[in-house]
């Protein structure tokens, strides 16, 4: 793989990492966790998709984004409108092709699965998907997350990929992001200046875009302890049985008063049917306080479909995805209810 030139920074502690992130924020820095997404993203394009043509440059006539960046003309003052437009493009490209990559592989404190005294689950950002997949406690209590891990990429991707990276990339089809929304995960986001907590469901604003600011980094994600009589499930609909990008993904977390009893709370997360994973709020309105019975579940699944905003793309059609959101939501609610010990 041919990557553009960049320097790799390897912090030995999280504080050092925060300092580096802040120091190089303006020059362009990206975080390398497992690398399964970032290193793909950084490759030199075989066919440059859209090269901003460097019309105003005295040093060269045209070139790749990288060479435009290297050329440095954009640092000079220019009053021309077209130059300013190009400057914006170049600045975007600095974010994509940064000068620095910060690799977190030495930060052991960011890797690990722990359950605290309140029985909340904390998963470090650098925890691999394989770690999650093999965690007995996650499979038992936060089942949807384990199922998300199962279905992500392939064993080789899961061995390298991390939950922090999977979520930070903010793809609508991310297999641990979707169940994390349903399970009410909350991200720990740190920077040199301090820390804040962001619920996963309000983390992403568009594909690849998040509330994270320059210099910030995800250090972990915390999931609330599941109350008694609650359960979860995740299913990803795809065309083959491994190495797949989710076509429609649905994660359901449900809490009942007792097995078979009325729904006290439900969170349904929909993947690949909107610009980000979506929390289907209207399901809650339909189902809370009702019994998890056939007719109610059907109504809830319909509500989920209404919340979805799928598009046509090369992976699938909007109509199919829309139909599947309803179907898979229906199935996952039933499965989650069964896991609580009820029968629909």
């Amino acid at each position: 793989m041919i990557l553009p030139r960049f320097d790799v920074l390897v912090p030995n502690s999280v504080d050092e990492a925060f300092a580096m992130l802040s120091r190089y924020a303006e020059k362009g820095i990206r975080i390398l966790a497992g690398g399964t997404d970032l290193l793909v993203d950084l490759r030199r394009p075989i066919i440059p998709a859209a090269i901003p043509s460097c019309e105003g440059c005295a040093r060269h006539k045209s070139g790749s984004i990288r060479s435009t960046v290297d050329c440095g003309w954009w640092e000079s003052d220019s009053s021309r409108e077209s130059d300013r437009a190009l400057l914006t493009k170049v600045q975007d490209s600095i974010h994509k092709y940064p000068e620095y990559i910060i690799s977190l592989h030495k930060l052991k404190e960011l890797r690990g699965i722990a359950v605290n005294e309140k029985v909340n689950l904390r998963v470090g950002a650098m925890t691999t998907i394989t770690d999650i997949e093999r965690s007995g406690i996650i499979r038992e209590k936060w089942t949807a997350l384990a199922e998300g891990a199962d279905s992500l990429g392939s064993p080789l991707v899961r061995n390298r990929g991390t939950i922090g990276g999977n979520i930070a990339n903010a793809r609508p089809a991310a297999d641990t992001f979707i169940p994390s929304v349903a399970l009410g995960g909350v991200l720990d986001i740190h920077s040199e200046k301090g820390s804040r907590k962001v619920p996963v469901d309000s983390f992403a604003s568009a594909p690849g875009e998040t509330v994270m600011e320059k210099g910030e980094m995800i250090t972990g994600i915390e999931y609330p302890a599941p109350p008694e009589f609650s359960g979860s499930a995740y299913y990803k609909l795809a065309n083959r049985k491994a190495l797949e990008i989710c076509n429609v993904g649905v994660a359901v977390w449900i809490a009942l008063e007792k097995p078979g009893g009325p729904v006290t709370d439900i969170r349904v997360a929909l993947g690949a049917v909107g610009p980000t994973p979506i929390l289907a709020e209207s399901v809650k309105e339909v189902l809370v306080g009702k019994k998890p019975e056939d007719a109610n579940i059907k109504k809830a699944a319909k509500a989920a479909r209404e919340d979805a905003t799928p598009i046509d793309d090369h992976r699938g059609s909007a109509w199919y995805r829309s139909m599947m959101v309803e179907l898979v939501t229906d199935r996952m609610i039933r499965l989650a209810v069964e896991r609580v010990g009820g029968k629909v």
Partner: protein
Amino acid sequence: MVREDLGLTGSKKGCGIGDCGACTMLVNGVATFSCMMLAIQADGCVVETVESLAENGKLNKLQQSFVDLGAIQCGYCTPGMLMTATELLRRNPHPSEKEIRLALSGNLCRCTGYQKIVDAIKAVAGE
């Protein structure tokens, strides 16, 4: 780096972006595609490639099983398959067919239909 600087060309490049598994190595015992890893990330790690499997010129059991049962055609996926299978068998010496297929699901093969590869691993696992 492993291929060009160390001259260990056994690990193959099939896609460069972590889709095919031809470049699989073990890094601290974990099956890892090397195309998705910067050399600096492996700093201080034990890296095993297909070249490390045979000892003193003698094939190990898994390699011999691949040879005997015809798990090889073009051979391009073979080094990666062997490394993934090595990790599986260390972790789980007696995997079921389903566990074998699951473990191999990130290593693409276009020649064999996987059947003889699964058979070869099963033959070692059954011992």
